[in-house]
């Protein structure tokens, strides 16, 4: 596969076709062997999950953890709350997802662009990227209230204003991982591929479009694997400080302060579902887009 990739990139069409065929065969062989393992890897966690749920509902878990049904409400009650409040929950989910996805897209696009800039000016690019990585250390808790104040003048509608503030928080957290990975994608090329392109007297633009951009594609997904969960976490936390009271994270906070633990758990479950769903979408997208491309 290592070779297949390079050949497809630069070599003539015949080798390209041959390379594709061989990888397909390899995958087919792998698939047959993997099937059993794949079933098992899914089955065991599912069984474990069901076991935990049963222990939880029958309150055995409460005895083990030394807690009560108030602090750790029964799953039945939590599910019931979710079903009783579908419209309210959807409204909060929508607010959270818009912030998370909006910030993720903005941050990723900006990060990719920063990666391009850093690559275009290699002298300070790598240094700039490492400084940018320091931004990941900025706690959301610290920047969320600041952004709230900064966005005060942007809109008269507090709903839009606080949406913007929250999206900016998510954007900041997502920008960094994308810029670092995009930069790596642009610069960590296959050995000799750059020399090969140069031997063809390819222009910088051609090298960028035909070598660097395709090479960065897997790196984009590496970045997204970090930013997708991070975007949801930042969205949930930034809601704590938002001016307009909406969102799954905000509901968790309000419910816990009001000692409504069952409701808080319901929203925690919803938050988990959002995270898992978005990650699953990412993995599927990655599988489809990078089909036969992942060379590692």
């Amino acid at each position, binding site marked *: 596969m290592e070779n297949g990739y390079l050949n497809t990139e630069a070599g003539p069409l015949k080798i390209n076709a041959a390379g594709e065929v061989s990888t397909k065969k390899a995958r087919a062989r792998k698939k047959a062997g993997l099937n059993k393992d794949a079933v098992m890897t899914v089955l065991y966690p599912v069984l474990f999950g069901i076991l935990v749920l049963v222990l939880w509902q029958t309150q055995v878990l409460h005895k083990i953890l030394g807690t009560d*049904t*108030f*602090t750790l409400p029964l799953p039945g*009650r939590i599910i*019931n*709350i979710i079903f*009783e*409040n579908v419209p*309210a929950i959807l*409204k909060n989910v*929508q*607010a959270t*997802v*818009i912030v998370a*996805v*909006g910030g993720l*897209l903005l941050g990723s696009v900006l990060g990719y662009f920063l990666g391009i800039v850093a690559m275009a000016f290699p002298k300070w690019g790598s240094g700039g990227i490492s400084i940018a990585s320091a931004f990941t250390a900025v706690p959301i808790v610290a920047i969320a*209230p600041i952004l709230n*104040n900064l966005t*005060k003048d942007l809109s*008269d*509608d*507090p*709903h*839009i204003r606080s*949406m913007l503030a929250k999206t900016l928080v998510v954007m900041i957290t997502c920008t960094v991982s994308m810029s670092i990975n995009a930069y790596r994608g642009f610069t960590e090329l296959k050995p000799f591929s750059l020399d090969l392109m140069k031997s063809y007297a390819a222009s910088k633009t051609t090298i960028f479009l*035909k070598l660097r*951009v*395709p090479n960065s*594609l897997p790196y984009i997904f590496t970045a997204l694997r970090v930013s997708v969960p991070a975007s949801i976490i930042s969205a949930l936390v930034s809601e704590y400080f*938002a*001016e*307009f*009271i*909406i969102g799954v994270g905000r509901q968790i*906070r*309000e*419910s*816990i*302060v*009001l*000692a*409504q*633990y*069952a*409701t808080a758990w*319901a929203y925690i479950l919803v938050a988990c579902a959002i995270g898992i769903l978005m990650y699953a979408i990412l993995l599927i*997208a990655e599988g489809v*887009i990078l089909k036969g491309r992942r060379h590692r």
Partner: protein
Amino acid sequence: MKKRIAKLLAVIMIIAMVSTSLAACGKSADTPASTPAASTPGSTGKYYDKSTSAESIVKDAASKGKVGNWGLGNEYEVQALLAKYGQPITFLSQAFDMDGFDNDTILLASAMTYNELGLVKNSYEGGYKYGDKVGIIDMNDEGVAMLEDNIFCTREFAEKNPNTVKAFLYASMKGWEDACNNPEEAAKIVFEYGSSVSSEHQAYMASEVKKLVETDTSGASVKDYGNMDDKALQQTLDLAKKYIQLSDPAAASKLQSMTLDDIRDVSYLKEAMASGGKFGDLEKTSVSIQLKWLPQAQFMGYYVALKKGYYKDVGLDVTIIPGGGDIGETTAVYTGQVDFGVTWVSNLIAANAGGMDLLEIAQVYQRSGLVLVYKLN
């Protein structure tokens, strides 16, 4: 190469499709939410005149979506007031400073008479120096007062440690009486115990807290400290039933069937005050009390009792634990991390509806300290 371009195009297409579909989601979400905020045009001047009625101020500020409150269980009186004047009960999330009021993001801001209102009016450190240029809407006058700072513990703790509870109440009330008689001294004591605010603000707070402890919702003076007035408590419970929104159906139905006996027990205070300071064997001598907020004159009674040895006199070793931010005083007491707590009655009601069994044993504040503050033209 073509395949590669096709794949890249596919990626771009997917991103574009996702973003457009989400943008559509965004619009559909924004429109209904923003309509109530910016529908009715209203007021004539930038702020309000002295002669403007509370009703028209509330209506105007609500129509502009500029009524603020901290939320987190502090919002029910404001919601009751909004409902009283037929307004939607939504409000802006107000930060724990008054910057939002200062920069006009919030026209009608929530303020406690003893804290935020002082910061808005006064010119000492941290003050916004508005002086007489602000007006207030008092929850007591509007008939939507809900009782605030009380003393509570779990029912189980009270039943197991009746003498400790009585001793604690007796010494605490002695502390409150002392603090209300000498608010300046009480402010100094609180300041010594690690204050979150300046000494001038502490002194202002003590003088205002004294009014809340010694005056009831109708404005009549109260001399029996900690008295649990059934009428005021019932009003609090009634408003709580109306405005505490619980998503949990089990908790919601429990809230609706709640009576005063589910949330308070007057016997401990009564017996404590009649005891004359003798309580027999204390079941537990080392106890702690969780405050609702940072150390400040809002809780001066406990600090005075501690400083002047009133707790020691009844044989108690008391630890005062400050709150702040998202500290859940009801949870702390329920889980047994602390023995007593100070909370608002509405928070206790919500907690009991959620499944706790907490018991109010004294009502320190006899009237609501919450006001809505607005700027005058």
